[in-house]
């Protein structure tokens, strides 16, 4: 815990096998996927550690068209996020990362096991997303008892009109250096590469 941030050093995740297969180019029309690939997906999913962070920040105001003011002084400028956070009490910042993935993928490539490397890479990508789902599930169950709930959707920087540069804002608010993550100040690229950030809204349950 740092200034209201909850850190998770090992999140339970179950990456959806069908999404991993999709990343690998699998099509349903090809028939059932090879059993060894499915087993490898399970095996790698159990080997990857997923960490994450969560923070709620009060929303203090909005300025049409498309700016949201947060209690910590952050200004979010995006029509998409404005629509998402409209009527919300707070913004929730989320981050998830799979720290060991790059080294494990490189190790598999180095060991002439490129087939395993690509599976591992796809599993890791889905694990990061699944990490965000896990954080929202546990936090959602807890805040529901205070009469609050998350918006159904969440936004990640780089999608819609949410600029990639917004990654830096989330990164800083979540103090993700505490999880060993870093961000490139120019390209806003996250390291380790299997990392994902998002914003969701916290609203009152009527």
């Amino acid at each position, binding site marked *: 815990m740092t200034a209201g941030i909850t850190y*998770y050093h090992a999140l*339970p995740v179950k990456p959806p096998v069908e999404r991993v297969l999709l990343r690998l180019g699998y099509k349903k029309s090809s028939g059932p996927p090879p059993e060894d690939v499915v087993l490898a997906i399970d095996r790698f999913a159990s080997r990857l550690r997923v960490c994450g962070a969560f923070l709620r920040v009060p929303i203090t105001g909005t300025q049409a068209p498309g700016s949201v003011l947060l209690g910590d002084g952050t200004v979010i400028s995006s029509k998409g996020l404005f629509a998402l956070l409209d009527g919300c009490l707070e913004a929730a910042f989320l981050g998830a990362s799979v720290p060991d993935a790059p080294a494990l993928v490189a190790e598999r490539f180095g060991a002439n096991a490129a087939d395993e490397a690509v599976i591992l890479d796809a599993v890791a990508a889905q694990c990061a997303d699944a990490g965000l789902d896990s954080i929202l599930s546990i936090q959602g169950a807890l805040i529901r008892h205070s009469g609050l709930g998350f918006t159904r959707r969440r936004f990640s920087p780089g999608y819609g009109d949410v600029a990639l540069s917004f990654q830096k804002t989330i990164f800083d608010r979540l103090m993700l250096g505490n999880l060993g993550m870093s961000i490139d100040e120019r390209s*806003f690229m996250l390291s380790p590469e299997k990392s994902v950030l998002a914003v969701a809204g916290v609203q009152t349950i009527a």
Partner: protein
Amino acid sequence: MRNDFRNILKKKTFILDGATGTNLMRLGLHGCPEAWALANPEALIDLQRRYVRAGAQAVLTCTLGGTRHKLSEYGLSDKAANMNRRLAALTREAVGGDVFVGGDVGPTGLFVEPFGELPFEEAVAGFAEQIGALAEAGVDFILIETMLDLQEARAALIAARETCSLPVLASMTFERGGHTLTGTDARTALITLQSLGADAVGCNCSTGPKEMLALVQAMRPYARVPIVVKPNAGMPVLKDCATRFDMDADEFVFWMRRLYEAGASVLGGCCGTTPGHIAALSGQLAGQPRPARRTEPFSALTSSTRTQLVGGPVCVVGERINPTGKKALQAAFKAGNMEKAVELGQQQQAAGAHVLDVNVGMAGVNEADLLKKAVLTLSAALPLPLSIDTADPSALEAALRVYPGRALINSIPAGGEDLEERLKLAKKYGAMFILLPLGQSIPATAAERLVLVDQAVTIAQRLGIPKESIVVDGLVMAVSSAPQAAVETMRVVRACSKRSLHTILGISNVSFGLPAREWLNAALLAMAVENGLDMAICDPESRSLRALRLSCDLLKGNDPDAQRYVAAMAAADAPAAPAREGVYGAVLSGDAHAITEHVKKALHTADARAIIDGEIIPALNEVGDLFETGAYFLPQLMRSAKAVQAAFVLLEPRLAACETKARPGTVVLATVKGDIHDIGKNIVGMLLKSHGFAVHDLGKDVPAQRIVETAKRENADIIGLSALLTTTTEQMRAVIALARENGLKSRIMVGGAAVTEEYARAIGADRYGKDANAAVAAAKQLIEAGASG
């Protein structure tokens, strides 16, 4: 009062209160609910009195987030015990002495090992602190609720059992698909928690009463304790940009009656419910008799995600996670590495094992630590229930404590001096156990063994362990040294079966020291099944035992419509897909081992170039086509490339001797400056190599200058550039500009998630590769165009 509570629970419906947080929210609740309630006691007292007036027989303390872990979010962890005591006192003040007060215990907000980072004992300690404070303040029972993770619910339940003697109700939160966040289904949660000693088990929150019906129906046939339901006021709906629970009291009660009819008897409300909902509920269902229990006995093991019933089809316990005679596994265990064990578990699961035996016993290790680690790792990695195989009681307890399910103990000697101590461990952790009918020595006859069995079963029952938790090992001895051994074993199996005790045999012991052991093993299994055998410890990968077991299940009527038999045999009998042979076939199937032999054979009749041009390249083209049509996907593409590289190890040294044709071309590959994503580039590099290109892979985050210098030095035909993000794709433009400035003739090919055909054209690239296969095709086109140009 506490005895009254247990008695009411056994006989009648019991009405709990409804939501606290969603009602206090209307009165201004914000921030930490526990702290807010202490600062605004009149609001809480008023709400709780309204619940009493509505007919609630118990009101819960406002302590759902009262563990030190949860309170740490507000900097209040050191005040946890004090806050819980004060909140419990407030509720008692609100409801008086005639209404029960339940100490409410919820999740820590963290995930407990093996699914998360919170050490199990730390979770237990946090819950024990809270529950101790609630008990001290005089609550009548503990309700563990809103648990999203079975392991966290176990930690809270163990803490309650070790801290106080109050009745404990445990309720999980299931998501819409019927599973908790960590994948537990309702039946598995029920069996695990009731075995561990919960006085009632059920579900709360997340869904409305309608959606809980299926959960209660899944629990009822296995419920030996009352079922708790505390649904929300319907499913949350989005209305006017706000989430709402809008099920009114009448509809709520309509569904609560259905839940009661389905078997639930402890009834309350969760988020969105109000005193109005509870008044309607109490009016309809208070004082009703508890729904009749289903009384068929059953035995079941669980993992966190699966229930394995014992009895009926033969249950196979995979025996291979055992270091005895396995040097690689011994070395891995000594290094604390569990990967090999997970792999063995996966193999046995794929071969049809229902339960995995875990044994880490060997000299020079701390068995308690190692077994605990193995159990944590395997239970997080695999869905099968575990059989904990150790003779060391401290290792057994360490493993049972952290196992997130209902384990099988392998084993407890019936004539052992510490029989009672071990039975108490089984009872405390709700485990099933294998009873070995032996003492200082192994009795030779069935009669002697059965005396020991009967004595041990009597003691177990005195301790409150039902017969269904016991599995008797018939003790299989080698027939090579004791000709009557199998006959005596069969007598034990038959006699135990008549006593309604489950039985298990370690099958392969029978054939020790004899040739063609499979036949003897199979015969023993068949005979034992006929005598009532329930479980077999064996190698699940033994084809004969598997076929025989499936046949026995079918013939004994344990495989309705022969579904499992037909499915297994159809798979075994399925004609193999017509395989292409030789080098071509090995590339197609991605068989890096077989291809070496095929190449060696082919070299007797063809030179290296002919093999490459006549077999490998056409096969790779077919692999590419299969990828394009979706018949193959990325791992298969990579396997084929890997096989080709294995072939090249043999072919390359011979190429010089017969070479009339150069390599198709030289490619310099790089992920551009500022970008660290290189999986796509690595895949392209591997495929290009397998198509014969000379590839210089510069890695990731490579400056333009270095790319251009390398291309110049290597006289590259092609520069291949990769970038993932829109912010880094611009670096491609810089590389192209620098290459042109330097007068390089290399053609430039680009790709990556954020790159499009249009973008490639706009920055002056010569080709765009949408994926690795397309990149190879583009590289070939560029070379051909260069040659013809």
